[in-house]
């Protein structure tokens, strides 16, 4: 009983409960049919949201105003870079992934350079950067119709007993991210900056370096996500990352990370990503029109955030 109460006190448990409820509602509707396949599909789609969600989580944890709006453009460009470098060739998969990672890291570093050099709010810096990245992508990826190498495409769709391998790898990655956040100097520094940037600086945290690393990390994860998405959906596309602007922010907040900064958790990102994907599946199963689906998605996001309530900022 005590352990149950302890579990319920965790901020991330609600997103998992929400995901479970949505799943139960859907299989109640279909009469138990397709419940397993739905989880498989949800896991494979949630992976892409989790990867960028974790990057966004570190950025948001840096404190008020910190957010990476360049992720969609970043994902789009990286997907094109990965496909061009791989060029449908199995032997180039690793090189292509590295190229996408490098592209994402460069974008993240450029974002921080703008924030630091122009001393502008990260929202505007990443927004301006995303305009430029978008143009580069449109120009670079025009008419790009390179299919991913067969090995890479089957890797991103590979399942063992109905569990996508990519999801298993992403779980391992999330465990790593959670350890980095809670047990390593880097993560503790991010939390400290989010709680009080001045106190963190006075305590000897190298604020500039940590912020630089965080934006670069977010960029790198966006780049990786772009390459994986291109593999999963069999091709790069300028608009491939569009939905991840809202999704990456939404999973972070629904997952129980404080928008005021200084408080983060990784499991919630998973719970919220599953919740959002299952929610879409449910509405599709119910056969509602696109308009109703958007309307309900929006109302549920507002409802969830209202029920979860905001935390008072620490200052």
């Amino acid at each position, binding site marked *: 009983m005590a352990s149950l109460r302890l579990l319920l006190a965790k901020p991330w448990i609600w997103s998992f409960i929400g995901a479970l409820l949505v799943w139960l509602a859907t299989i109640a509707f279909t009469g138990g049919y397709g419940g397993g396949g739905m989880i498989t599909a949800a896991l494979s789609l949630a992976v892409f949201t989790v990867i960028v969600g974790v990057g966004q989580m570190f950025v948001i944890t840096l*404190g*008020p*105003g910190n*957010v990476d709006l360049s992720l969609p453009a970043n994902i789009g460009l990286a997907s094109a870079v990965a496909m061009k470098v791989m060029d449908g060739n199995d032997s180039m998969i690793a090189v292509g992934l590295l190229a996408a990672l490098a592209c994402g890291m460069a974008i993240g570093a450029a974002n921080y350079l*703008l924030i630091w*050099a*122009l*001393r*502008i*709010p*990260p*929202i*505007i810096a990443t*927004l*301006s*950067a*995303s*305009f*430029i990245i*978008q*143009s*580069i992508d*449109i*120009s670079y990826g*025009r008419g790009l119709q390179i299919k991913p190498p067969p090995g890479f495409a089957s890797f991103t769709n590979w399942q063992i007993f109905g569990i996508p391998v990519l999801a298993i790898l992403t779980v391992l990655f999330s465990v790593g991210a959670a350890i980095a956040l809670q047990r390593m100097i880097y993560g503790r520094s991010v939390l400290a900056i989010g709680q009080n*940037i*001045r106190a963190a600086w006075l305590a000897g945290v190298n*604020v500039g370096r940590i912020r630089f690393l965080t934006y670069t990390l977010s960029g790198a994860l966006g780049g990786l996500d772009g390459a994986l998405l291109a593999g999963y959906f069999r091709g790069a596309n300028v608009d491939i990352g569009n939905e991840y602007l*809202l999704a990456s*922010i*939404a999973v972070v*907040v629904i997952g129980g990370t404080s*928008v*005021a900064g200084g408080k983060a958790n990784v499991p919630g990102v998973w719970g919220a990503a599953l919740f959002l994907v299952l929610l879409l599946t449910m509405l599709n199963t119910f056969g509602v*029109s*696109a*308009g*109703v*689906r*958007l*309307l*309900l*998605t*929006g*109302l*549920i*996001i*507002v409802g969830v*955030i*209202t029920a979860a*309530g*905001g*935390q*008072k900022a620490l200052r």
Partner: protein
Amino acid sequence: MTAVPVETGPKSSSERGALARARLLRGLLPAMSLVLVLLAIAWLNPRAISYFGFSLMLNLAIPIALATIAQMFVIAGNELDLSIGTFVGFVGCVTATWLKDAPLVGVLILLGSIGVYALLGALIHLRNLPSIVVTLGMSFVWQGLAILILPKPGGKAPDWLLSLMAFKPPFVPFPIIAALLIAAVVHFGLMRTSYGVILRGSGGNEAALSRAGWSLLKTKVVLFALTGLFGVLSGMALIGITTSADANIGNGYTLLAIAGVILGGGEFVGGRVSPIGAVIGALTLALAASPLLTFMHIPPDWQVAANGAILIIVLAARVLISRKER
């Protein structure tokens, strides 16, 4: 965001003079960027600088300016509205359908949507919610409603709206008159009235304002309702120009409006906004977005990048000036 301005005590008169000059320069920066864009256009295509040219180039500036003003109100209260673009689209769909076919119902829907904005303000204040997430959710809601009202592009603007937006005053093109009017009205309301000071104060120092006995709930509700009001005006103006609507018609306005406010000298925190600057920022973006780039023969691929580059250049100039201000 990292640097907190520190009071440095009394200053010598020469320092104070330099400070005043830097402030003035900073205030003039939005206007200077607009002049710069205009000069570039005049140099590239002198014929564009005419009554007809301005009417054409600034055609879409009115809805952009109104959306920017809408965004400015929430930013004055330290919040952000990520749904203004889809809201403008929703209003556009209502304008092109209900407002023409059943004006009374249309007016009620639009008034109701302003009420929804006011409620959002109350909800955000009472539950202490992050506005970014709430408005993110609302952007889905408005988009969904817009698609339900108008599943495919169509509808028609009411005739009175069409004739209003096609108004051709003598000597000065309508968009310029409209921009001046919008800037003057909002400037007076927000910068010159006593309640306007309270509204900006709610973004400047919440605690001080609430200790002085002002209701923070009320200021937030008023700010959000004003955002809703100007969002409605923007959507209607847009449909008056395009004559028909589409559920996705306003999607680009969210980011354009934020950029316009910042370009016009507004800041994300502290209630530091400028209505005149916001309108100038919107005009600059509207001009820089396509006419200038077309005259410069920049391929459409790079027009978005040029927008980003203009933002970065203006902000860089502001940093150089602010450095003197410190």
